[in-house]
């Protein structure tokens, strides 16, 4: 009598259609708010828009997070000061939330739905949240790039269950179907190879792929509906790999023909990273940021998510004067010394993010910089980590969205009755060419970003 989501026994693509999400499929692009030619593209140069979501676990220090609109423009609070030089390109949001997160037991797991807004199913086995906005965007933009999206992180899931939830939830913000998280790269070398290899290995696999596809199909008749659903993950993967092989052929032809918009960076600007996990966490984070920025610079993908750490992570940066992991410090109990350390870690995260944004700002793509063509969101699943409080979330958006976003402002929705985070997601999806009339728990996009 396990009750399954009505849609989770069908494949991901069918699922997306079945859910009735108005995906902007190629022939529907004229419906996009940004005009047929401009869907997912910014301006005359034809440079594409990019979407990134950066996440950190365990919330923020509420005393120093946020910004105000002062007479001279945006005034950043202490935690955001590393972004000072970029503040004209920032929107700092106040009051956005996912209403579903304040029910459900436990301070962490039920809140791991930042990019879908749907309920995190309380289960230790048949996990379910919702397909996330970045993956829906990737569906739309994926055909233009070798990879539809890149999902980055620094930590894998742990083997535990708690309060009736599996810890899987704390390790993923991107889900490519309601029941499966998008695979996350935590090894820099593999993320690099994913993005920048020439695809020759994959071509060899084509004939084998055809056969295993047959395998899986014939197996379907031996399995129950329940198990077929799991096998379909495999089948979908086979199909996507096949498509990627075809795509990589097309892209190599397009590159030699020199047609269309060409990225200004044509080859990796740093060497292939060493195998394994870098010894120092901040080294690891910097490297993953670099990979993300390079992927955008080279237009290998237009959608990225990056979990700087998992929720409930106890990552320890070994910063001067900081004793303890971030989850431990987030429960500072208002102890001044611990709060101070927590604050330093918050600022350190912002510092690393700012460095990546600066690289993007320094990448010229014709009429605009890469940052101006992009939308880079930073968020967490909690606001006040100490109190497990998700009645609002920390949300900062950097970048110009290809001329569609006017930065340098704090947007306060805290008094707004409809302050759902999914409204922001809808606004971003629209700009990426994945307009929808309904997403998560929202059906109205935020309209005042521009």
């Amino acid at each position, binding site marked *: *009598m*396990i009750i399954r989501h009505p849609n989770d026994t069908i494949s991901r693509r069918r699922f997306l259609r079945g859910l009735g999400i108005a995906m902007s499929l190629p022939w529907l692009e004229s419906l996009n708010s940004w005009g047929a030619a401009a869907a997912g593209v910014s301006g005359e140069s034809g440079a594409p828009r990019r979407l990134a979501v950066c996440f950190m676990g365990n919330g923020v220090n509420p005393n120093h997070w946020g910004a105000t609109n002062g007479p001279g423009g945006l005034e950043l609070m202490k935690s955001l000061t590393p972004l000072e030089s970029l503040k004209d390109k920032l929107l700092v949001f106040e009051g956005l939330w996912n209403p579903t997160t*304040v029910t*459900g*037991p*436990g*301070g962490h797991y039920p809140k791991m739905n930042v990019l879908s807004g749907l309920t995190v199913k*309380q289960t*230790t*086995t048949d996990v379910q949240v919702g397909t996330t906005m970045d993956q829906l965007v990737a569906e739309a933009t994926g055909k233009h790039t070798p990879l539809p999206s890149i999902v980055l992180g620094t930590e*894998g*899931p*742990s*083997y*535990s*269950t*708690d*309060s*009736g939830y*599996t810890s*899987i939830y704390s390790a993923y913000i991107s889900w490519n179907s309601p*029941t*499966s998280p*998008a*695979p996350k*790269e*935590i090894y820099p070398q*593999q993320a690099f190879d994913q993005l920048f290899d020439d695809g020759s*290995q*994959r071509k*060899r696999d084509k*004939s*084998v792929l055809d*056969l*295993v596809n*047959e*395998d899986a199909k014939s*197996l379907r008749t*031996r*399995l*129950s509906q*329940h*198990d077929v659903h*799991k*096998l379909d*993950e*495999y089948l*979908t*993967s086979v199909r996507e790999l096949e498509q*990627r092989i075809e795509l990589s052929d097309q892209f190599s032809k397009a590159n030699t023909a020199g047609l269309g918009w060409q990225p200004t960076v044509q080859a990796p600007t740093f060497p292939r990273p060493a195998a394994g996990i870098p010894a120092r966490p901040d080294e690891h984070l910097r490297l993953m940021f670099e990979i993300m920025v390079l992927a955008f610079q080279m237009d290998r993908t237009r959608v990225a998510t990056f979990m700087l750490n998992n929720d409930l992570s*106890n990552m*320890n940066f070994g910063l001067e004067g900081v*004793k*303890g*992991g971030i989850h*431990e410090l987030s429960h500072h*109990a*208002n102890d001044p010394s611990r709060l101070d350390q927590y604050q330093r870690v918050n600022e350190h995260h912002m510092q690393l993010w700012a460095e990546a944004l600066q690289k993007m700002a320094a990448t010229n793509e014709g009429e605009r910089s890469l940052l101006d063509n992009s939308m880079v969101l930073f968020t967490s699943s909690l606001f006040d980590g*100490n*109190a497990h409080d998700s009645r609002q979330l920390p949300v900062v958006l950097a970048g110009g969205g290809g001329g569609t976003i006017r930065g340098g402002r704090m947007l306060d929705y805290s008094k707004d009755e409809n302050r759902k985070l999914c409204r922001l997601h809808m606004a971003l999806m629209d700009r990426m060419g994945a307009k929808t009339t309904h997403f998560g728990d929202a059906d109205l996009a935020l309209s005042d970003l521009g």
Partner: protein
Amino acid sequence: MSIRSATLLPLVLWPLLALTIRADSATDAWKDVRPLLEQKCYECHGGKKTNGGVDLKKLDGDPKFATEYETWEKVREAISTGDMPPDEKPPLPDAERDKTLKWLAHSLEDPIRENAGDPGTVTIRRLTNTEFDHTIRDLTGLDLGLAKDFSPDGGGGEGFSNVGDVLFVSPQGLERYFAAARKLADYATIMPGTGITFQKQRIGLRGPVQVKAQAEQALYVWYQKMAEPILPKDTDDAREADYMTACWKWKHHDATGAASLEELAKDGALMAPFLENWWNLLTNAEPKSRYLDLTRVAWRELPGPDAGKPLEVPAAVRERILAIQAAQRSWLGPYGHPGEGTQRHQQDSDGIHRYDFHADVKGKPAVHIVLGDVAGEDNKGDWVTFDGLTIQHGKKKEAYLDWLQARLRTDQEALAKPDADAAKLNAQIAEAETALAKFGKDPRGGTAKPDAIVAQAPAVITLPLPEDATKFLAGGKLDIDGPDADAAGVQWMATADAPPDPHTVLPGILTVWKRGSTATGRLGHEFNVMQNAFPDEYLRRLEEIARNYLRGGKGLGVYYLSDAQLLSLIPGGQKELWEKMMADWKLVKNKDLNAPQSKEWDAAVKRHLTDFAAQAWRHSLSNDETAQITGLYDAARARELDRESAGREVLVRVLVSPNFLFKLEDSNQPGIQPITAWELATRLSYFLWASTPDDTLRAAAADGTLLQPEVLARETKRLLRDPRASALAEEFAGQWLKFNGFEAKANIDPNKFPEFTPELRHDLYREAVEFFTHLIREDRPVREIVTANYTFLNERLAKFYGIPGVTGDEFREVPVAEYQRGGVLGMGCLLAKNSYPHRTSPVLRGNWLLTSILGTPTPPPPNNVPKLDDSVSAASTLRERLERHRKDKACSVCHERIDPLGFALEGFDPIGRVRTQDEAGLKIDNSGQWKNGASFSGIDGLRNFLASRDKDFTTNFCRKLIGYALGRSLILTDKPLIENMRNDLARSDDRFSVAILDLTKSRQFQNRRND
């Protein structure tokens, strides 16, 4: 109430299944009972009052057993124990009470009992990363750790990674599988006979020459490895005399009564094949070799047994045999110094050089230069010039000619003296003149150097010696310029004893010939015959056997073993391997293959590939599957890939197939279905080994016997004793108690604890793994997980713990009760794991004890943690801070149970060392007390406390084991299995295997529920 509810399984962890079946009948009966509850209970448990958190009124319309099971359990317990109604209220009338209890029993217990062992819904399971690595290791013999490149797995179900729902497949994941399979395939050699072998090194693309070389190399190495323990070493006594004596007994078996050569070998502790070889050697005249005749003719000429004592070896025979042995050994060089004798140097003889020789002559009147003609070899051209004749007196050297001439002069002068012994002097003078006459002339005419003697073989040249001479030295050189030099073949030597006959072969003496001459060909061959019969060195003996695959099994040597002889002496299984290697050789040695050979080769490779697929896929292949495998091979061959590359395509395909990557179970028949023998084998091996079934288990699956309870039990026990059962320690215990992964990453700040090195981290992890591996494989009592008075340590870890008397890197069992260690409570990895990077955390440790050990977790912290009083942060010690924190009622409910347990372990620092002071230098207080409950202090007190709650512990252990075995969360209908396991454990001194056996024979384990 808190204690009692703690023994119940937490509500939220019981997804409900079978109970709903009873919902209708329960609801009908409900109408009977409801009025009584309304009348007696709602006052305190409904509407306005909900004492004890129990609100029965909200269940007024529908008892909702499916979701409110725990509530009704509480109600039943309260009524049956008489706790409710409370003393101040009137009790329930007996009839009413019984009716209610009966109804509750019916509603709560019956459905569980009737549906006991429901397999539950289990999603097909992909191999976890660990299972993938173990499976590849056991399939290929290679442990490449390929899964380290995969995305890490998470945990689901009861907290284990092997739960199907949380084992995802993605395009990136599939790509990693491809990369791993490609990498692995490159390590494979695929041969017609030996089949698919994964080599230690990457092989990659190979041409026919390399393939042939590999087959040859493999055979060569195999022969050497097999012969190695059998052949006499250089330092061994080869016992030639004993072999010859046995042959003599066999020759005269009519008299000696010898039954057979085999018997003689047995009696004399000789190697039967070698004795057989000796017999053939001694009794055959072929192949011709005058060198060998020295042994075999001499042996043949031995006298027979004494008529009077036929069973004894006559002394004369023994003596002569020893002489033959000495003569034979004289070719080889000193024992233990192989390759120093004439036998090795013979090949360098070229006639160009002058060869020195010498003899010890102490106390002897004369020396004889013996010039042999190699046993009647035509003596044409056998001319040798001897010069440099020298005698040595102690250390003083003198030219022989000088001494001879001096003695002659002295003798002649003495003869002139009146009192001379004329007879003696004249004899000496004649002797000297005869000797002198040999010098300085060439008997063929002409002269030679004054100090040289020129002679033709056969000859013995006798020269007188001074009384004090100790050594005679000289050199000889063959005349290779003469007209008959091509016929020359001679041996020479000097001796002061009776000279050997120069018409025979001189044992141990170099034969000198002119290189490339006709004599060299003839004599060289005969010499080689002897050399091959008695290889002078262990390595040469090995070599002789190792070339068998080329020679087709012929050898003359006494230490030679024919294939048949060798195969009779080596361990089982090796014969099959040899046959396979010879099958390889038969095909790969050909430069060009004819059509039948080509077909044979392809057919063999395809057979190996389908065998591999059947093994990798853990079932017998269907016809379609076989056709697919062979079809892919043929297609690859058609693309002009070589056989090995085509085979590798198939390997990749096999290893990325869902048949390999998933533990598939047929599930298209609805309802509860028994699983097949293959599926059971797979469940069993992945449960106990986290790996694929081995040959024995596969055999029991293939013939279906695994479905018999006694076979299943036998296999279960066998697997548990196997070293691979350490997977249960790392995966089951490691994930249950959460030390899995500690080896790779620990949450300790290396700046604060520089002594926490990677080696130490590794040792701490190993301690836990070794402990559990021991517990599992030695079938120790489950309670020892908590109560053991031992642990596993190596020297480094023992030092870290401050425990003396452990030396070396090896982990071994150490009694540690007096050092605050033993079992999981004292394990550094778990103490560190439940600490923060810089400090200990009684909350983390206490919560771990409550959750992982006792299985009685507290509810999660509230959604919005209340703001703490400022006094909390002002507290000076951790204990004080936690105590103040507990003043808040919302916190205290749980922390009253969590914190005291953790305090008991405060005597261990964040990296698991015993300590008496905290960081601030304050004395450690390691006492804890549950509110209104037990108190305990330190690890020993805590251990006793936990032992007193062993029902909780055992229940939790069983629960976790079931969750791990089945790959799902527990459901209510698993309760009888837990009961069963607990009872059987109690009856059998808590032996680990009892729980496992109960599980593997359970209905859950042997069936599946399909939707």
